[in-house]
């Protein structure tokens, strides 16, 4: 089983790297946000899937990443994408710590509502403090340099579907590997243990709140990285990124793919982006069909697409 997973992961990565030679540029510009959301969801799911804390306000950190990229590139003239990622990530962690300190005292729905309130607080700040944040229109995000290379000869699309795309897929692989190590480390096991039985793990000496704080901060970092990629793809950071419905979409993706599995949210991110994009092309009532899909998943396939795949796999094997 483990080797099968390994083969599947390597094959998917190879496929992602090979995509630009198969797919048209448009589809690659769609894969890019999917990769961004996949990274954000890796972090989100550390908190949701592994720690059992459902945040309905994680769009906040995606927005911090996006605004980080915006401020650094168009206000401070920092071009290096590596620096942008590190600084935006750090900003997200700095924003996450006070929120986490307050929120990890709770679980379940209270945790969800509290994170939602913080997300909306940030949204109002972005919206209202026009002079600092550009209000509703937000801030432009300029093209970064990758490892010091600006790719001046490429136009924006060529840059996005070329070097930037490979860079982000690479980033997904690296951050995915790191997250894999995190969830399989003693730290990750502690998180799972405290999800299963908080009291018991406290007796056993797990510092539940502290560990959750750390998990929260890591998830914020991942979300910010995703947000920075999204913002560069769009060329703009705007307050809608922090709106609660965007947080809802993150949860949607995680559940669509299956949050109980490490790879579920990644599958969810890719499926969601393509589903939404295709639906928007087919019908103006895409929200309805998206909602209906979500209901079907929640009611009939709570383990998500990956869970569905696993069931089919076992059934085939039994035969």
């Amino acid at each position: 089983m483990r080797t099968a997973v390994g083969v599947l992961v390597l094959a998917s990565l190879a496929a992602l790297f090979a995509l630009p030679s198969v797919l048209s540029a448009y589809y690659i510009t769609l894969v890019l946000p999917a990769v961004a959301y996949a990274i954000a969801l890796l972090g989100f799911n550390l908190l949701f899937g592994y720690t059992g804390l459902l945040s309905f306000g994680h769009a906040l950190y995606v927005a911090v990443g996006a605004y980080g990229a915006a401020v650094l590139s168009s206000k401070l003239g920092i071009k290096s994408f590596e620096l942008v990622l590190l600084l935006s990530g750090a900003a997200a962690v700095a924003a996450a710590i006070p929120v986490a300190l307050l929120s990890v005292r709770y679980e379940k729905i209270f945790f969800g509502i509290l994170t939602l309130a913080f997300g909306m607080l940030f949204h109002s700040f972005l919206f209202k403090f026009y002079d600092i944040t550009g209000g509703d229109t937000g801030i432009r995000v300029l093209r970064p340099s990758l490892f010091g290379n600006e790719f001046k000869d490429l136009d924006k699309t060529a840059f996005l579907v070329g070097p930037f795309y490979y860079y982000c897929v690479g980033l997904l692989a690296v951050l995915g590997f790191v997250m894999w190590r995190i969830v399989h480390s003693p730290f990750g096991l502690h998180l799972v243990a405290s999800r299963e039985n908080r009291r018991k793990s406290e007796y056993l000496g797990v510092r539940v709140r502290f560990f959750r704080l750390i998990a929260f901060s890591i998830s914020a970092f991942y979300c910010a990285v995703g947000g920075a990629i999204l913002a560069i793809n769009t060329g703009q950071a705007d307050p809608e990124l922090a709106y609660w419905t965007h947080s809802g979409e993150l949860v949607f993706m995680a559940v669509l793919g299956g949050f109980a599995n490490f790879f579920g949210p990644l599958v969810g991110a890719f499926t969601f982006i393509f589903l939404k994009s295709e639906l928007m092309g087919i019908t103006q009532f895409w929200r309805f069909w998206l909602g209906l899909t979500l209901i079907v998943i929640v009611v009939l396939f709570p383990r998500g697409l990956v869970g569905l795949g696993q069931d089919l796999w076992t059934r085939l094997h039994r035969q």
Partner: protein
Amino acid sequence: MNSHRRKLLQAIGGTGVVAAASPYLSFPAFAQNTPIRVGVIAPKAGIAGTIGECGLRGTMFAVERINATGGIAGRKVELIVEEETNPKDSIERLRKLVLQDKVDCVQGIVSSGVSLAMGAVAEEMKALLIFWDGTTQDGVKETMASPRYVFRSTDNECEAVMASLLAIKYWKGKFKTIAGINPDYSYGRNNFAAFQALLKKFGVEHKVVADQWPKVGTTDLNSHVAALKAAKPDLVFSSLLFADLPIFMRTAHGAGLMDGGTKFVFPAAGFQHTALKKSFTPEGMIFGHNTLYFDHKDASPLQKDFVKMYVDKYKDYPHWEADRAYFAMQVFKAGVEAAQKAKNAWPGKEDIISAMEGVKVQSLGGPGHMRKDHIAEQTFYQGLTTHKNGYDFPTLGTVDTMYSDRIQKPPGGDFWKWIETAQIKL
């Protein structure tokens, strides 16, 4: 529903079969007998949905007429409509239209947040894009001084400048204290600031006693009205849009804000002209209809046809977004046809763009042209409202008409400096 509509649009667009019968004579036969594809990105939901709807109707009207009279330089027009939402998703839609559907031109966009982001993306993608509305200004500072591929509408501040000039013309000396209630985004902020700058320029002494910035889409304005009423202004300036303005006026009426003969200046009221009922609005407000005043007595036959069609078909009276959308399509058509004529062959994108620069067209609301720096000039209509009409909402008693070269800053200039130094006629 939409797939149905799309088929319909394609049917309007027509393909070879229909095209064969239509008057092809004035144009030589081209290798490309396929329709010209135009992508439209317009809001369909949310607070701006009403604007997108009206604009789309303007586009469809334009396309029906164009296709009925032989198309653009002999080629029929086929529309592909996508939804404008937030900047992130709308830019995905733009990429789909350009990279996937390979459209020849993209038109649309209402929100300045989206247009600001999308302008830069389209320019980098070398995609021909004509905005209906919106802007590429960050505040009033132009972010795209000389774009090649992006064509923009008139600056957002035009209507504010015009309304301010009318307020001074009609009411100078009749008000001392002013209050603003404007939407909480750059449009509202610039509008109110422009009003104050113009008052200063024309030496109108005034004092701002209140300024309110409700979020767009706020449906309960009781507290805002209470705050305004407490400040007792002689004049209220408001560029509220969408349903917000009717709600504001209804609330203001209920609270007695207009009892003391308070004057009202509404540069952007035309978007919801039918929702501002007579029963809760006073006569004599300064009311902006922007580039299309549906009830204009001296309107062109084109406008009269359009308004009649609109009333018959949609049971409503159109506002200016239909004109902006129609204008965008006409500018594209004029550009293609001029380039085709000059070249006597099917023109490339660059030829079309060069031909669009400086092109003059007749739009629904009146004449307009596309400046060399890719900013539109159009005809604006505002005036003082009257209740003497056959509708249940006010119309203009006196119509003031201004071509936008009087109320828009010239290419490259700074807006605030222009207000200070320009020779602006009242």
